[in-house]
């Protein structure tokens, strides 16, 4: 099973969300079941495609365009008790969509925030969704919920108007009821819903409130179920304990790609209450306790055949050598002539940049609970792609998609790391052998670091030319392996050539918060800083001179003001740096201050200031958490996170050896959020991480005149060498 999964990801997907998941047409079935599950009321459905056509964010720059399936994107139910339920296939993984989407519904429908609840990421109850990635929840789901809510409000107004024999124009929908402003009589939404089983797909033309008219959205409403979390009452997948549940453990090969050559489970087979499954190279045990399952595995005698593999030491030359010849247009982008631009340039420079593999390390490891009942499979797991996991499981176990239900409890984070079926597949395979008993698998931290997937390593080469007065006129950019997110320069350069070079996988790789946008911004913004110094210009002035986009200039200027740029050095070893970027509809600028102590051999991040703009802000409190969170998470990949691997083994699969940002690493932080009510809301989960690494590298150069061109920067090493 593992092999099949590996084979599917042999080539690194430049963007995981380019997957065109097949639309599942389950609308009719869902509508019939809908009222059975929720009781009577009013249901409104939004067609995803129409919603997108009407209210999509401005076209994103880049090679990719996203298409959601031409299907139902969201739906809403108003119950007889006035409770409003929104359904979305998106998953709550800590980005706080439950609150944001509830706000959106409350705002547009005119109900108290407390009356709204969200059902998320349940393949039986929710409309198909390709997955929770690409910062897409805000730009795709908030407009859809606006539209269904606006439509529902219109229906309720019409119902009340009919009941009172009035024109709907004279009625007001607010606070969960329709009020006739003339007679002051009113009727609650729940009253109108009573006895109804009214389902309607919304027309394409529905006008939702502009951001300037929001009253519940746009406010810093706290996380809806905060109390559950602080009381330890929320049940993550890892916390589930359904009746009769067994604990599962998987026997892991000694290295990647190892194959089973001999197998003897005669000693394990006799162990009381232990179920052993051996299927190809998959060997696993289930038992009433984890200890007993592990004892079962320990009693199995196996031999593996290992294959030699490459290591950190040769990864970058390997990536260059093994790059696939690619003429694919979608991997290339041209503007003007780089050759002409370089020929006419007063100054030319080249640079090579490297990025190591890093891990997501979500604090809740991959986990799943699986149960087979009458040939149907239920799986609870922390995944960002419940429908894709459902389809994968259906395919692997030769059942139909209707026979598999995947439910995602609010999850202990993911950061792009929980796209695959992994633990769900393993638990489901074990559970086929347990006579209907549910099986839970929780990956250990070591398994998480070893058998999950990584943000891929990469090599980036840049060639550039500029005029004597610092206008960039030629820009050539090649990314090997790490990916093409934000590969295009946001600068106004007349002659450009950009290419992404695919390389067959070395380590299992996939999405990560921001994907390759961090690598591409690191290379680009480091190189721009080099050019600024060559042009003897202030790095901020240099960037502003080469930018045309006013939104990008605005974040740069806002961050510069908050940071106090240009800065006067007041102490030895002080360094200041900046970087900026654009991706997925949002703009970011990051300014950093470092303190370098050459004698002690230490580098400390003193301060980070970041300005971020993603259109109209839906929840400034949640947004601030996401932006500051990305800044702190970004410190790890920028400064010290690195997966060490050798010959098919991960050498540092523990928190003791894989360093992550901790409290002492966190500097003074300021996030400046720019609210553009005139621009549709974009997502914010990823872009705020991109400019951290180059801002730190540029600050290190300012302090030391040493240029660091590899992530992680590991600045202390360059001081000691």
């Amino acid at each position, binding site marked *: 099973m593992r092999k099949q999964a590996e084979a599917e990801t042999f080539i690194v997907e430049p963007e995981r969300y380019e997957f065109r998941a097949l639309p599942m047409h389950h609308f009719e079935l869902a509508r019939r079941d809908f009222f059975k599950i929720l009781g009577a009321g009013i249901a409104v459905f939004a067609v995803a495609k129409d919603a997108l056509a009407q209210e999509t964010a401005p076209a994103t720059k880049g090679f990719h365009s996203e298409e959601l399936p031409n299907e139902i994107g969201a739906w809403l139910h108003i119950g007889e008790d006035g409770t409003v339920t929104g359904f979305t296939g998106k998953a709550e*993984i*800590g*980005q*706080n969509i439950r609150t944001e989407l509830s706000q959106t519904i409350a705002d547009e429908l005119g109900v108290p925030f407390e009356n709204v609840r969200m059902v998320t990421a349940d393949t039986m109850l929710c409309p198909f969704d390709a997955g929770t990635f690409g910062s897409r929840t805000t730009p795709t789901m908030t407009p859809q919920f606006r539209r269904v809510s606006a439509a529902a409000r219109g229906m309720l107004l019409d119902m009340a108007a009919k009941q009172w024999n009035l024109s709907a124009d004279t009625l007001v929908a607010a606070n969960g009821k329709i009020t006739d402003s003339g007679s002051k009589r009113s009727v609650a939404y729940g009253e109108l819903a009573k006895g109804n089983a009214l389902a309607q797909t919304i027309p394409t033309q529905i006008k939702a409130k502009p951001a300037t008219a929001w009253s519940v959205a746009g406010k810093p409403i*706290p*996380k809806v179920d*905060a*109390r559950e*979390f*602080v*009381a*330890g*009452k*929320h*049940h*993550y997948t*890892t*916390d589930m*304990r359904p009746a009769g549940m067994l*604990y599962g453990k998987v026997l892991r090969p000694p290295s990647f790609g190892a194959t089973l050559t001999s197998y003897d489970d005669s000693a394990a087979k006799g162990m009381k209450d232990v179920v052993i499954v051996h299927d190809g190279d998959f060997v696993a045990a289930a038992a009433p*306790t*984890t*200890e007993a399952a592990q004892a079962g595995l320990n009693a199995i005698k196996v031999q593996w055949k290992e294959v030699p593999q490459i290591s950190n030491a040769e990864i970058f030359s390997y990536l260059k050598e093994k790059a696939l010849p690619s003429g694919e247009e979608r991997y290339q982008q041209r503007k003007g002539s780089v050759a002409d631009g370089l020929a006419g340039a007063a100054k030319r420079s080249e640079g090579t940049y490297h990025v190591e593999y890093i891990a997501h*390390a*979500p*604090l*809740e*490891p991959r986990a799943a609970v699986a149960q087979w009942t009458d040939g149907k499979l239920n799986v609870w797991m922390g995944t960002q792609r419940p429908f894709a996991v459902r389809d994968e499981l259906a395919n692997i176990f030769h059942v139909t998609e209707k026979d598999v239900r995947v439910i995602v409890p*609010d*999850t*202990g*984070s993911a*950061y792009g790391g929980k796209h695959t079926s992994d633990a769900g597949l393993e638990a489901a395979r074990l559970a086929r052998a347990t006579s209907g008993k549910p099986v839970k698998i*929780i990956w*250990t*931290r070591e398994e998480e670091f070893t058998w999950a997937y990584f943000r891929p390593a990469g090599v980036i080469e840049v060639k550039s030319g500029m005029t004597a007065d610092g206008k960039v006129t030629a820009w050539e950019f090649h990314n090997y392996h790490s990916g093409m997110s934000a590969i295009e320069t946001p600068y106004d350069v007349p002659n450009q050539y950009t290419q992404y070079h695919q390389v067959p996988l070395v380590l299992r790789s996939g999405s990560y918060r921001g994907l390759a946008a961090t690598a591409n911004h690191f290379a680009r913004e480091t190189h721009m800083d080099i050019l600024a110094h060559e042009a003897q210009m202030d790095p901020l002035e240099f960037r502003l001179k080469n930018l045309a986009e006013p939104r990008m200039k605005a974040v740069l200027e806002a961050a510069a003001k908050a940071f106090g740029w240009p800065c006067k050095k007041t102490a030895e070893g002080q360094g200041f740096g900046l970087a900026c970027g654009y991706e997925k509809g949002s703009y970011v600028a990051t300014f950093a201050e470092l303190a370098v102590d050459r004698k002690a051999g230490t580098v400390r991040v003193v301060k980070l200031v970041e300005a971020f703009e993603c259109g109209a802000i839906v929840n400034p*409190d949640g947004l601030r*958490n*996401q932006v*500051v*969170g*990305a*800044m*702190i*998470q970004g410190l790890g990949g920028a400064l010290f996170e690195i997966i060490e691997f050798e010959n098919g083994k991960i050498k540092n699969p*523990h*928190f*003791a050896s894989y360093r*992550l*940002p*901790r*409290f*002492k690493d*966190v500097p003074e*932080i300021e996030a400046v959020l720019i609210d553009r009510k005139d621009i549709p809301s974009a997502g914010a989960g990823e872009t705020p991480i991109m400019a951290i690494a180059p801002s730190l590298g540029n600050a290190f150069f300012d302090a030391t005149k040493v240029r660091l061109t590899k992530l992680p920067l590991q600045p202390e090493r360059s001081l000691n060498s």
Partner: protein
Amino acid sequence: MGQTIELEINGKRYPVHYSPDTPLLYVLRDELGLTGTKYGCGEGMCGACTVLIGGTARRSCQIPVSAATGKPITTIEGLEKNGALHPVQQAFVDEGAFQCAYCTSGMIMSSVSLLQANHNPTQEQIVQSLQGNLCRCGTHPRILAAVRKAASKMQERG
């Protein structure tokens, strides 16, 4: 399975039937259903499994169940009193000091332990006492703010 051991958790006595070297974490979660205490690494490096043993923060994944007898154990489930959150829990809510919240139980237990020993900790002391707790979502500034807020609330109450 081993012998029966008695544990005192959140003011209640529980007989448990694990072998004496089983880490307390698994007994709490798997046998007693006290799943508010989280597994993050099993190596004492992330703090998600932090509980109070005799009032002091300990990593329950590193404590054999046999070493947890005879002392009162407090888990996140034991902080609420008569339906009211502990001031540290309340401060985490007030400051919005979590995102995925998987680290939150451990953060709160470490903070409660700190504030019981030191009613008015400095920023450095808070940082030091939470250094062993990982937050992958990067909510650190708000967690620090929550601990400071809880400290001043607890002082007001005396």
